[in-house]
């Protein structure tokens, strides 16, 4: 069983996503951590409430019983503290998994996360890596208010030296987290409180999902007809895109839905491949629009495939305001199905 990235055969096809071993997103995360911790005793989990309380969101349920308090560790409420501790432990040769109850709380650890973690290897001329996985809830969690509803992918993706994975479903959650844990680079792993109870088939057999390889959720690479538009998303909004695509198909509009799985590295090649057939792109992103991942995707599309576009690129972000507290406003603020459908329809009709 592989414990390093180099030992994984990524050319082997991934197991089927269809099946009846249906578990929750949170269980998929737990399985990924548990499997890797059984194989590699350098891996440990630290965070607020992860041990005796079984995790604020029950992701680590039962892990204390299996691995004991040396490896499942309740940290003081001190994000900068345990982020820095992880850097030290990683420098020593351990492989920490750090759970942020919410990525919103990672902001107080910014100096460690942005000024130390991604630069360790660089500043030591390749000598001191920082193979830490930082994981936790990202994005609007359902009326948590603006301070607890951060989407950090755009802000952190700006920093070289990091990898950022952002799964949209239980199958990917497990496969991507396993890859994150064996990866020698620091990985920011963005989950969503709103998806932790989502259920799907997760295979029994071991699998690792490679970083930088998007998954096509709707449409086909070799369909008889080309899709009408390329929808690009990552994380929770992928599910909104799929809902929109299914609805649009009833009106005869076919979408390629690309789930990026990781935003750093970004699988721009798959996006371009799809655009060459659809000639239209809509990017759906739960970050604020200014300097977002959507901005980056569209910039790269213009750089690499400008002549293939039949319509100006379109993006659907959250509105450019702090996340509202009221239920109806939060729902409207997000890049929901209705907004996506409107965007696609306007692109298709004018294209």
């Amino acid at each position, binding site marked *: 069983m592989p414990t390093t*990235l180099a030992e994984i055969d990524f050319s082997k096809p991934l197991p089927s996503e269809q099946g009846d071993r249906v578990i929750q997103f949170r269980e998929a995360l737990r399985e990924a951590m548990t499997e890797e911790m059984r194989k590699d005793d350098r891996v*440990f989990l630290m965070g607020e409430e992860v041990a005796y309380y079984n995790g604020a969101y029950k992701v680590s349920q039962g892990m204390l019983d299996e691995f004991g308090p*040396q490896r499942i560790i309740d*940290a*003081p409420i*001190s994000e*900068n*503290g*345990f*982020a*820095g*501790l*992880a*850097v*030290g*432990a*990683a*420098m*020593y*040769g*351990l492989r920490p998994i750090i759970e942020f109850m919410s990525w919103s709380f990672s902001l107080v650890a910014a*100096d*460690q996360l942005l*000024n*130390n973690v991604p630069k360790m*290897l*660089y*500043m*030591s*001329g*390749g*000598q*001191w*890596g920082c193979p830490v996985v930082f994981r936790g809830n990202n994005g609007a969690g359902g009326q948590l208010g603006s301070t607890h509803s951060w989407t950090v992918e755009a802000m952190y993706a700006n920093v*070289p*030296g990091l*990898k950022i994975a952002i799964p949209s479903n239980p199958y990917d959650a497990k496969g991507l987290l396993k890859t994150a844990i064996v*990866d*020698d*680079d620091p990985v920011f792993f963005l989950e969503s409180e709103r998806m932790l109870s989502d259920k799907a088939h997760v295979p029994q057999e071991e699998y690792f999902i490679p970083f*930088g390889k998007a998954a096509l959720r709707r449409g086909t690479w070799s369909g008889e007809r080309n899709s009408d538009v390329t929808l690009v998303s990552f994380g929770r909004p992928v599910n909104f895109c799929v809902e929109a695509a299914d609805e649009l198909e009833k009106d005869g509009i076919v979408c390629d839905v690309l789930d990026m799985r990781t935003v750093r*590295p*970004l699988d*721009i090649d798959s996006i371009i491949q799809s655009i060459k057939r659809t000639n239209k792109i809509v990017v759906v992103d739960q970050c604020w629009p200014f300097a977002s991942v959507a901005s980056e995707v569209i*910039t*790269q599309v213009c*750089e*690499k*495939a*400008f*002549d293939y576009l039949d319509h100006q690129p379109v993006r659907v972000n959250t509105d450019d305001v702090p996340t509202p507290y009221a239920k109806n406003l939060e729902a409207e603020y997000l890049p929901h199905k209705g907004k996506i459908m409107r965007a696609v329809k306007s692109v298709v009709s004018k294209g």
Partner: protein
Amino acid sequence: MDQGANVRRMPYTAWNAFVEIFMAIRTAYTANIEHISILDENGVLDEKLAKTASGEPLLTPEQVLFLYERMVECRQLDEVAFKLQRSGRLFTYPQNKGQEACALGSGFAMRKGQDWLVPCYRENAALFLHGMPMGHVLLFWAGDERGSIIPEGVKITPIAIPIGTQMLHAAGIAWAQKVRKNDSVVITYFGDGATSEGDFHEAMNFATVFNVPAIFFCQNNQWAISVPREQQMNSETVAQKGLAYGAQCVQVDGNDIFAVYKATLEARERARQGGGVTLIEAITYRLGDHTTADDARRYRSADEVESWKNKDPMIRTRKYLEARGLWDEAKQKSAEERAEAMIKKIADDALNFAPPTTDEMFNYLYAEIPEELRRQRDTLRTNSLSMNPEQARLSESRR
């Protein structure tokens, strides 16, 4: 009160009277902090205190001689580095002048190749004792990342410039030592100003809660660049800050190599035996500027600096050796000459090191270079048009 502090002094009010009462209470409280002083300003040794727990001499005269020679080298390095910076060959450099006993006394108490040093940037002599080549340090301050490459087997982390972040790394390394059941102790260095950072408090909290084998060594040199200690903190001592975390706390005369060595040795042994964390506050003084980019004359009075010159660790260590017939002016002169020649050679080698190739900027960011970055490296361009030949051709054909 020196001139620099006078500038900031508030007018006297009734409030100050209250403050003075509190000060009195506080002084009583801080009396709980042990202060160790063994070798005084005149080089006179307190023989009773200069013993280990088992009654052995704390440091033999030969060991003191060895350490003194390292002090001479370190002081020479400061001189050479200062001149190199002024002639434009070093980017910047923080002088260690006046603080050598802190680095040497503590570094000597840690086991080379076994214990870990997690430095900030003003403990050169400890790094050299533990195997860091002097040339690396010069290369680093010349503005070359490769100065941070640590030789195999040397247990030192790269010089940390952000204030305080390294203390958390030290807590992490110490914690990892503990869970891996290794017999190693971690010492981390920082200044008085860094104890205002959250990192200090979070690191102290983690280290003590997890009871890790760590020593927090504060070089209290009285000034955080231009801000004096009294404006940096309201606590009488740095050491007492550790009381809140349940750490062992001790204050030493940081210009007294015996006191520094003793406190660190005891802290190290305590840590090894599972006794946890010690915070050592070493009272010292930065005789030079903060770095070569600073001019301390703008905020410190000449009187203040002069008063600390008498407390220079080199003066008292030399007097100790002279009293035992181990040192004299001739030896001093030849030691300085040897050190200068050695350092000039090291500096020449370090500064004539071929500059890094452009590739190196890209090579150490990820364990394996990502495709996009490889393209940037190989085209050596950030101009996106030239990095995307297919679109470039299409744009060209439209003309």
